[in-house]
């Protein structure tokens, strides 16, 4: 007998949302820190940093980067629970239920991805303070990039959390891998001005393309679509597919 595939997926997804709604700290946790970052960095570098093609300064330059940071933080918050859940908590009963491993990953990742997406939506409100001309097309494309990157980062967080033996280990990975990935995505500074080896690192960083796609979507009204935007979209979707597969693989691989 095959169980309906989507029923547990939807149930796991809904659980993420309900838990989130009941925890005010998380709502502000994932958005507060990036917001402070944005204001401090934006104000601090305003004078000294002048990227080409951007008139209104650093606050505007890192705005899409902060969107990505919010996705990253939310993804980390929502997957960190997996570490304890799996051995001595809620996940145990999911693991002994007749639920496919793919369904388990999808439920959790879509749930976390939805939260990441919603949090970034809140931050999107600050667009009104920036001088970026927005159209339906640019907003729509931005939302698509946010959704895809939200899922990709949550799946990445899941894959790391599933094998972590402690939350401390997870934080170490976050500091040594995820946060540098964000810094080297072009969120902070463009590849053009960076030294050669940094530019190489940025070129092989999959987040770079999500970041770039996000930025180009926001400015779609002024610069128009181009083949590079399509390239960014393809890499981002591929990155999401890869991290999802990695998450599923982890769940199959690790049995104790």
């Amino acid at each position, binding site marked *: 007998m095959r169980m309906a595939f989507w*029923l547990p997926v939807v*149930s796991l997804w809904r*659980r993420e949302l309900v*838990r989130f709604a009941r925890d005010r700290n998380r709502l502000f946790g994932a958005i507060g820190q990036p917001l402070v970052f944005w204001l401090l960095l934006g104000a601090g570098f305003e004078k000294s940093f002048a990227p080409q093609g951007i008139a209104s300064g650093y606050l505007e330059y890192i705005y899409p980067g902060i969107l990505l940071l919010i996705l990253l933080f939310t993804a980390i918050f929502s997957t960190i629970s997996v570490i304890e859940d799996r051995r001595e*908590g809620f996940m*145990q*009963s999911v693991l002994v239920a007749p*639920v496919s491993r793919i369904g388990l990953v999808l439920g959790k990742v879509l749930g976390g991805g939805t939260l990441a997406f919603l949090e970034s939506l809140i931050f999107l409100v600050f667009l009104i303070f920036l001088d970026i001309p927005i159209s339906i097309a640019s907003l729509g494309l931005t939302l698509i990039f946010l959704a895809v990157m939200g899922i990709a980062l949550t799946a990445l967080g899941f894959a790391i959390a599933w094998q972590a033996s402690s939350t401390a280990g997870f934080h170490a990975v976050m500091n040594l891998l995820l946060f540098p990935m964000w810094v080297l995505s072009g969120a902070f500074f463009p590849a053009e001005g960076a030294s050669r080896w940094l530019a190489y690192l940025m070129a092989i960083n999959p987040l770079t393309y999500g970041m770039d796609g996000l930025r180009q979507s926001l400015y779609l009204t002024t610069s128009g679509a181009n083949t590079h935007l399509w390239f960014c979209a393809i890499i981002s979707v591929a990155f999401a597919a890869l991290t999802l597969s990695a998450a599923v693989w982890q769940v199959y691989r690790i049995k104790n």
Partner: protein
Amino acid sequence: MEAAIYVENVSHKFGGRIALDSITLQVMPGEMYGLLGPNGSGKTTLFRMLCTMLPPDHGRIRLMDKNASASAVRANIGVVFQHPSLDARLTVLENLRHQGHLYGLKGRPLSQRIEELLDMMTLTDRAKDRVEVLSGGLQRRVELCKSLLHHPEVLIFDEPCTGLDPGARRRFWDDLDILRRTYGTTLVLTTHFIEEAERCDRIGILDRGRLIAEGSPEELKRTVGREVITLETRDPKGLQLQIEKIVRRDSQIIDGQVRIACDKGQQLLAQLYPLLQEKVQAMTLSVPTLEDVFVQRTGHGFQVEDL
């Protein structure tokens, strides 16, 4: 009769440490089988294998038909874990609904089943409370409901009474009795409480990953002898030698006490009586318990610390 669970020659290592060493046992349909063992004896490891979470390094485990897929087995077992598996932020009802969804239950039939179980466990008026505000005993009862939702044929519990006070424990066992009477379910449970093991139809005693005894509690106790004499003393070694001289009997030193298993305890007690003044602070004659079985087979006390 075909067994409900076969465990055949199962061994497992974590790193270099042997957690289970050639375990073989069978559980019959409708039976209540207890796995008794001290901390670290391998109970949870075996439990995790029974509920399809951990494949054994060696040997075979079979629940139901030998060709059954893991997911078919999962659909037919109800599990309670040693550690809580409820989402503390969700209400009792939300937890149970979610659990139902994992098993493909939904809508009216699910609500009815939940109502029925909440009623059976007298939890109905707590259904809307978040799990985090319930006492440990109530949470454990919700765990029990959770394991029963999908009418499993086999229940597998890992120390279901951890964290419960004696009253709640008694209550839990009464619930189990109701359950068995109502559904005739096969039940495997692990425990480190002797009194709990006594209530099972059959038990297997685990020590350091080995199954050192198996049978009904009565059978096992009979192997020790009819009675046990326990002597409290400050000099167990010396006393042991003396006993050997006086009554020519083997004795064991467990936790600083000297024990003698015997059939005619009263006579023996009379023979040993003179020792009471000089060497022995207290003498007790009792019928053997499962602890005595454990002690006799392993040569050490049930609460081992030197692992």
